[in-house]
């Protein structure tokens, strides 16, 4: 090949890289494990030091939750046709575009919204992009967020909307819902966005969605609501209570947790130009073809994006999580309207059963009342145990206890966020409760 190129050796091609920029020694990286068997034994031996949530009983959530993954989600997600595809256009990769259009369509039904964008990095950054969309729409920069927002998420927002002012609106200490008086006090003609989550970071259901939207809208602000898509068979979609933009994370929809690598974000809105024009991401649209009655799919209004307009495009986009969108579509197709309701109800039942049983332990309380979905706050303070020691003791019994909220919220030291889903059987919950009972006794 070198001969065909017209050079004697490789060095003649490397001349474009000046000597002074060259690395003059071999890389200090182990020599290759060329045999597949040697490689898999090596990697497996390292990864065998892990424990998985299938080995231990897991009650951690806080932004990534354990759900069952239908075998078909894995089968389709592992199809080489989808897994290996990249930029291919409509004619080479029709199936990918149709599957992504279907993802948008099914999520649109769940959210009762007409426009859904391409899957993004994760729920937190999709929320950040949604906030930036509303800032461009309103021409304002002040963002009101709930006080009980994950600090990790707030940090992501601050990085994404650096020149913005973030005001944290207090939550009601009894219910975990937004303090409407504090909201009224802070909303103003400078407010671009009122952002809240349903359920909140604490798992509590925000029952005042309509009121919050009304307060925001009366000040000319936009309402962005982040939801758990898996709750939407039982909880009203945000469009029902005034959200202008809905967003969230797809991970609960048939995606393995993958040590946090299973996250994928979404953004949805009404089909109004004012919103569509502000999406940073690709949007897949259905269209017709030259054959009567045939559908085709392609990218819509890509002029918006940085791919076309560089720094004048809407923020930035790029390779995100398309395959996860396809898998989330498979998941919603398998569940259908009855399945999505059933899973919402099972999660409500299991999580409330667990909460009630834990609450029945004398020195363990439940914060924020009865209106929550999937996650709830368990207060170990009456037992004089801190969450760390409870979790350490649980770990010995092969249980991952809830997330220590004292790390992030001073007022919640001694409290842990428990996540209970459809994967937990009654026996699992009973076992947790028995072990906790023993731990707090001593």
């Amino acid at each position, binding site marked *: *090949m070198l001969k*065909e*190129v017209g050079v004697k050796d490789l060095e003649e*091609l490397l001349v474009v*890289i000046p000597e002074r920029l060259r690395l003059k020694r*071999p*890389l200090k*990286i182990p020599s290759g494990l*060329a045999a597949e068997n040697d490689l898999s034994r090596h*990697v497996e031996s390292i990864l065998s030091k*892990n424990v998985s949530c299938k080995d231990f009983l897991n009650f951690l959530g806080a*932004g990534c939750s354990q759900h*069952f993954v*239908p075998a078909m989600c894995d089968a389709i997600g*592992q199809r080489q*046709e989808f*897994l*290996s*595809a*990249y*930029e291919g256009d409509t*004619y080479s990769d*029709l199936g*990918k575009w*149709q599957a992504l*259009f279907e993802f*948008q369509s*099914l999520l*649109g039904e769940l959210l009762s919204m007409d426009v859904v964008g391409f899957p993004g990095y994760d729920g937190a950054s999709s929320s950040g992009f949604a906030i930036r969309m509303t800032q461009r729409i309103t021409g304002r920069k002040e963002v009101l967020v709930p006080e009980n927002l994950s600090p990790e*998420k707030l940090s992501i927002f601050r990085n994404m909307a650096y020149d913005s002012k973030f005001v944290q609106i207090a939550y009601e200490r009894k219910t975990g819902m937004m303090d409407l008086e504090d909201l009224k006090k802070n909303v103003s003609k400078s407010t671009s966005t009122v952002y809240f989550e349903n359920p909140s970071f604490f798992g509590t259901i*925000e*029952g005042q969605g309509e009121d919050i939207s009304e307060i925001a809208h009366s000040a000319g602000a936009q309402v962005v609501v982040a939801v758990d898509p898996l709750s939407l*068979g039982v909880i*009203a979609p945000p469009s029902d209570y005034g959200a202008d933009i809905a967003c969230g994370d797809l991970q609960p929809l048939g995606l393995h947790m*993958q*040590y*946090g*690598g299973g*996250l994928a974000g979404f953004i949805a809105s009404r089909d109004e130009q004012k919103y569509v024009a502000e999406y940073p991401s690709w949007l897949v*649209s259905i269209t017709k073809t030259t054959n009567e009655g045939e559908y085709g799919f392609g990218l819509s209004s890509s002029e918006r994006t*940085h791919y*076309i307009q560089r*720094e004048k495009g809407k*923020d*930035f986009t790029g*390779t*995100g*999580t398309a*395959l996860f969108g396809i898998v989330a579509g498979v998941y919603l*197709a*398998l569940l259908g*309207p009855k*399945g999505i*309701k059933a899973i919402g109800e099972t999660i*409500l*039942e299991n999580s409330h059963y667990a909460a*009630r049983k834990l609450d029945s332990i004398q020195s363990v309380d439940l914060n924020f009342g009865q209106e*929550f979905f999937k996650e709830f706050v368990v207060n170990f303070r009456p037992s004089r145990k801190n969450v760390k020691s409870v979790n350490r003791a649980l770990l010995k019994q092969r249980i*991952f206890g809830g997330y220590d909220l004292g790390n992030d919220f001073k007022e919640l030291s001694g409290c842990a966020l428990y996540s209970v889903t*459809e994967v937990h059987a009654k026996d699992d919950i009973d076992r947790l409760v028995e072990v906790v009972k023993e731990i707090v006794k001593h």
Partner: protein
Amino acid sequence: MSASQRLRRYHAHVWAEPVINQLSNPGERGIIIPGEHDSKIRKLVGDPQHYIPGKMRRKNPPNLPEVSQPQALRHYLRLSEENMGIASCIGLGGGTDTVKYNPLINEELARLVADMHPLQPEETAQGILEILYKFRTFLCEISGLDEFSFQPGGGGHAIFTNACIIRKYHEDRKQLAEKNEIVTTVFSHPADAACPATAGFKVVTLYPDPVTGIPEVEALKAAVSKHTAGMMITNPEDTGIFNPQIDEFVKIVHEAGGVCSYDQANANCLLGITRAKEAGFDLCHFNIHKTFSSPHGSFGPALGAVGANRNLAKHLPVPVVAFQNGRYTLEYDRPKSIGKVKPFLGSAQIIVRAYAWTMAMGAEGLRQAAETSIVNANYLKKKILTVPGITVGYEKSDIRLDNIRFSLEKMNSDTGVGTADVMRRMVDYGLQDYHTSHHPWIIPEPFTPEPCESYSRSDIDYWVEVMRQISKEAYTDPELVKKAPHSQSIGRINEASLNSPEKWAMTWRAYLTKSGNNMQPTKT
């Protein structure tokens, strides 16, 4: 392949598969939910709806389709069959994408972390932390920089993270008000302009010298001022031309007090040959789904690893993985960090694949991958320039390192056949279509292949022969190319309606509203 060898007469599957929403048969279900039919718990907690405030209960069920599992599987398999992907064809058309082979074993290994929670105690995650830590040391060696974060969810996200780090650096020195401009080049990835703009910087773009294809040092000097916060630059640029004065560029920006970030999204041709460190860069990023062989997944999941030198490492996102007293731990206490750009630690499964790939390659294999990519690129260039109608941008810069930006301007003016036509026609010969160019199209009627190390000489020959055949068609029967494709799953799409607010529809529900019709599909 010899030129006389026959080109494939590929034909895609034609399933005319309805949209899934059309496949609904009331009463069908694809899966049963745990506890749904026999809930011991419901008896104890009562009606679950009771736990939702009245106003917040969902009143109307979502209009999701009702399909059985066999029907859903059939549907998605048909869609996958109508998807060429890369694995089954020669994917060297994807310039700037480094679409290389993804060994299947790495998929199996990545699945070993599928059911781990990101917050589980460190002592139960020593295996994955070890992989993250060791892969970090590989990237430190490959780049010469000192610390890495794997949080960003893609190349664009990584560039944005580096823009945030540059911002933090100047904020920390209380000079952000003045340091508000980022310099880039027009042949750097568009994200090198868009991400600093999103981070609040003004963007100054350098254009290439018309002969060399690389901006002149003088142009950079003229663009740099006391406002220069940094430079975000790709090298080799999108043309495949390596900027030999890159260290001089860095020096000029450093002298103005700026921070330099090296876009190494596709660093394939540089592995073991040249590094960010030797060129003087403070920051860099690698697209793990490109150079390090994690599959592209139809456009993600992806990962952009962000590297920093000793001075800037303190600004990287938290946490970073550390190794102390024989244990891997997560270090959060880094007060100068920019904080978070993605929840948790990023996409661990992608690092497992990349670790496995790097371990399989070893130091020699990495260098060999780079060398093979360079030979392949120049071989392709030599061969393809014998095809009538094809020229290369900045022809005086003879040697290209990874992707190469060619032009069909001559073919277009001779025949009326342009790059969009040729791209569609390629698929008829069983090839994935190609990357044209990012915008603006400085080189007219562009196409940008990247024959990285995964492609053999016969693969490249086949690709070139397809281009030769299409060129022949363009010069003899241009309509054949303009009306392409001829053997795909569907006819030509109506592109105008994709961009018309009255007609576009991003969801089936929007389509029904706008079109007012729902054709009865074949549901079997």
